[in-house]
């Protein structure tokens, strides 16, 4: 960007956007902000029911949301060219932290995903890496000739594959795959040829039988369960069977908030986290789910519009990949809960109870806003 010619209106350092001053001061996109606020409120409502009307859960979630909004506003103040310069540094730090999970990570359920500095902080480096990867790839591709040739493609893939490998070895297949997807998205948006993508697809299909033996037993169970939940109705199939019953029994209008029998009598698992959309479906019915999907759609649409309006390669690629990754998360979560994808531990963005994934999301949204509000004038 430093080599680009920057046009600015005289007397403004932050660029011109022509919007309401209040939002302008905080570099906030009002539309994105409003949709976000509606989704988050809706999410709190669902969580309230999923947590059996527990105010402590809602309080904890509000604290996290507040932190998220704070982070978003903070990031929004950082101009894109600073983000650009920070990208490689953050990536290297992220890589280091990821590597540190091997000797120092806390083991939970047989996988070392967490770094814990006692009394201070407790976080997943892989979550941070979800933001750092699109940044570093956008940084790398921003001054390459696009569509990328063989060399930038190779380097870009390498940037993605190193942390991908580290996450895979934690092991955390679900996160690794979604992580890889966000990296691939950057390449795709940069103009990666369809032929390359198809070739990659073909390789994956060819490798599938080998993969089948490489993945773990519980993962094989999850995939088998997807195709036939009844094969182990009280074990592996239980979650998905109960989830489908919860969704189906909601019907068009739902059983009413707090009235979901599947949710409140504990037939449905993980109601506050991964399966929260089943609570929504049971209690507010098809109308509730469709409303949420519509809100997500609006948000994604706004995000994509921002990315299209971005004026340099870095901003475009970063904004686009953040938005599409968000869309992928929504699809994977609801797809899993409704039984069209295997069970992977992916929370429903902005709605599920949980901290670190929320912060990652908000950091991304902050970048979206920064990219949009620090635009140069359209000529």
């Amino acid at each position: 960007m430093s080599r680009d010619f920057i046009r600015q209106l005289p007397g403004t350092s932050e660029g011109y956007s022509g919007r309401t001053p209040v939002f302008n001061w905080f570099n906030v996109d009002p539309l994105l902000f409003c949709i976000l606020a509606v989704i988050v409120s809706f999410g709190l409502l669902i969580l309230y029911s999923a947590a059996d009307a527990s105010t402590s859960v809602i309080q904890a979630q509000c604290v996290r949301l507040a932190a998220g909004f704070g982070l978003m506003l903070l990031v929004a103040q950082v101009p894109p060219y600073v983000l650009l310069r920070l990208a490689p540094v953050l990536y290297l730090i992220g890589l280091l932290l990821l590597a540190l999970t091997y000797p120092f990570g806390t083991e939970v359920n047989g996988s070392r995903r967490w770094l814990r500095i006692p009394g201070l902080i407790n976080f997943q480096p892989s979550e941070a890496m979800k933001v750092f990867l699109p940044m570093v790839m956008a940084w790398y591709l921003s001054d390459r000739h696009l569509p990328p040739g063989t060399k930038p493609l190779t380097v870009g893939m390498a940037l993605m594959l190193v942390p991908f490998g580290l996450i895979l070895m934690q092991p955390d297949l679900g996160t690794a795959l979604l992580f890889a997807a966000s990296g691939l998205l950057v390449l795709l948006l940069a103009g990666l040829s369809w032929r390359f993508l198809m070739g990659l697809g073909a390789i994956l299909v060819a490798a599938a039988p080998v993969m089948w033996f490489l993945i773990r037993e519980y993962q094989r169970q999850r995939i088998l369960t997807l195709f036939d939940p009844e094969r182990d109705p009280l074990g592996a199939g239980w979650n998905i069977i109960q989830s489908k019953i919860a969704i189906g029994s909601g019907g068009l209008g739902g059983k009413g908030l707090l009235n979901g029998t599947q949710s409140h009598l504990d037939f449905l698992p993980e109601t506050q986290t991964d399966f929260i959309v089943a609570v929504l479906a049971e209690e507010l019915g098809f109308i509730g789910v469709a409303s949420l999907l519509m809100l997500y759609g609006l948000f994604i649409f706004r995000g994509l519009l921002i990315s299209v309006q971005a004026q340099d390669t870095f901003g475009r690629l970063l904004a686009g990949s953040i938005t599409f990754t968000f869309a992928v998360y929504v699809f994977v979560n609801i797809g899993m809960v409704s039984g069209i994808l295997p069970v992977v531990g992916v929370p429903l963005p902005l709605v599920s109870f949980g901290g670190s994934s929320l912060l990652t999301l908000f950091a991304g949204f902050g970048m979206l806003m920064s990219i949009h509000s620090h635009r140069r004038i359209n000529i």
Partner: protein
Amino acid sequence: MAEPLALKDHHLESQIYIERVAAGALVVGLLFLALLARIGYLQIYEYRDAVSQSEENRIQVVARPPVRGLILDAKGLLLADNRPSRDLRLIPEQINDVPDTLQKLQAVLEMSLEEVERFRSLAERQYRRFEALPVLFDLSDAQVAQFEANRYQFPGLFVSGKLVRNYPQGELVAHAVGSVRRINDQDAKLINATDYAGTDHIGKLGVERFYEGTLLGQVGYDQIEVNARGRQMQTLESVKPVNGRDLQLYLDVGLQAAADRALGDRRGAIVAIEPKSGGILALLSRPAYDPNLFVQGISHKAYNALRTSVDAPLFNRAIQGQYQPGSTLKPFIGLVALGEGFANIKDKIEDPGWYQLPGNERLYRDWNWTKTDAGGHGQVNLQKAIYRSCNVYFYDLAVRLGIDRLSEGLSRFGFGAVTALDLPEASVGLLPSRDWKQQVKRLPWYPGDTVNLGIGHGDVLVTPLQMATAVATLANRGKFVRPRMVQSSALEQAPSPTQALGEPLSQALFEPIIEAMEMVVHRGNQGFGENGTAWAYIGRDIEYRMAGKSGTAQVVEIEQGEVYDASLISERQRKHAWFVAFAPVVAPEIAIAVLIENGGGGSEQAAPIARELLDYYLLESKPLATAMTAAGLMP
């Protein structure tokens, strides 16, 4: 070669980007539509299924079994009631380690191999979620205490209390009342599972079986909301059970006990009927068994011992035992002959001690025939033929009547048919006829068959119940009343008590026959060969008038020219002893049939038993009436 300096083409980049975003947006749109379609499919197309599944998940219907109706004797004494019992039950889902739990359980409670096997098969069963299945039955206080003290070791196991059938009279009324058994897999196929929800037993024999619907009652239920771990949250709906109705029998336990005492250790059966109502006052079959053994499930070993015993304690001789009636059939044949005009009181025949069919060499002997031909009853009329039990008279009479009239006439007394109203296991007996012999034996009816039938031998078979019923018909002077266990007042659906079997005989015909039967008991001090056959045994000191008839049924054929000698043949091949009676002769209150298997002579062995019962019933069991009579308050 130096790589040409490539300038960034911002316009192209932006164009590519917009294309890619458009494609991406399209894909995202399609994926979201797919999600909507999927959710819509589940929520709209599969809505009904999902609702019923979610209801099934959360609502557990817990049956409230009704209390089985009591069975009482005529005086209100309990024959079958319900006692509390505790079972050990298990919930398969809550047992994590079956072998481990089993091992620990065996350390606490003693378990037979059968019980261990049942535990294994139940613990591995996937039936209805969180249903409690019974493993061990009827735990003692000590067992309950031992289990409860170690309760923490047994998640998924618990002791539950309930009412089970109890027969306070035990063996005494086993064959009269029947019993309930634990519902097995075969029963389960035949019954409506809903009616028996929470009920483990079903009436399998006798009154318990016949009145199953009345005794069972109607099941109630609680609809309980449960969570995924089977914990009960609240009761949504509750329907109370309707308890089974009590049944009062005609059976008199006092009489039954008197019958039991009188029969002692001998194998046999006694049936007593109230002629007016057909109500069965006593129904005894010995040896018997303790019906309580079957309530909680008898071990295979114990059951096999009962089943294979030579004494056949499970066999209900009173209603299923089929025996030749012997001479007890004679009064009925006499009646048939009077009715058909083939005999009258005055006609006499000469009995030389044997009978021969014209053109046949075979001798049909009288019971007092001797090898020296010194026997015979001399001049015999119908009444003498009955009180002396003359065979030759009835050989001759039967042959003159012919099988067709004989067979038809005897059927009017209920022979060859099940007439019992509520004894489902009763046997039909056998009343031979020309058709029967042709169809079953594929042989023509021979005159010799008729000769044998004349004295109740040959193919004819009757049960003690049929005999008692026929005697009750005699006592009623021809009015046939179906025998029954349960007092009809207790039942709404009481069927008509009378069933006419063919044209009833004229009442006047009965008196000479009944008079002759009275002589069997009361005619005495008339010199050798002139007394009633039972007089010497029971008739000397009797306080009331009684009509009776003895009978002796052969178990093995005796060769031509041989003499029956009880000491020469094994006990099981000795003759069966019969005695039938009713009393008082005027306005009879009780009709009775006594059978002693391999008992020997009817008058000698069976008649005293009949006398003992009639004494009890007419004199002892009505102390009030007797006292009033004695005090001159009653005529």
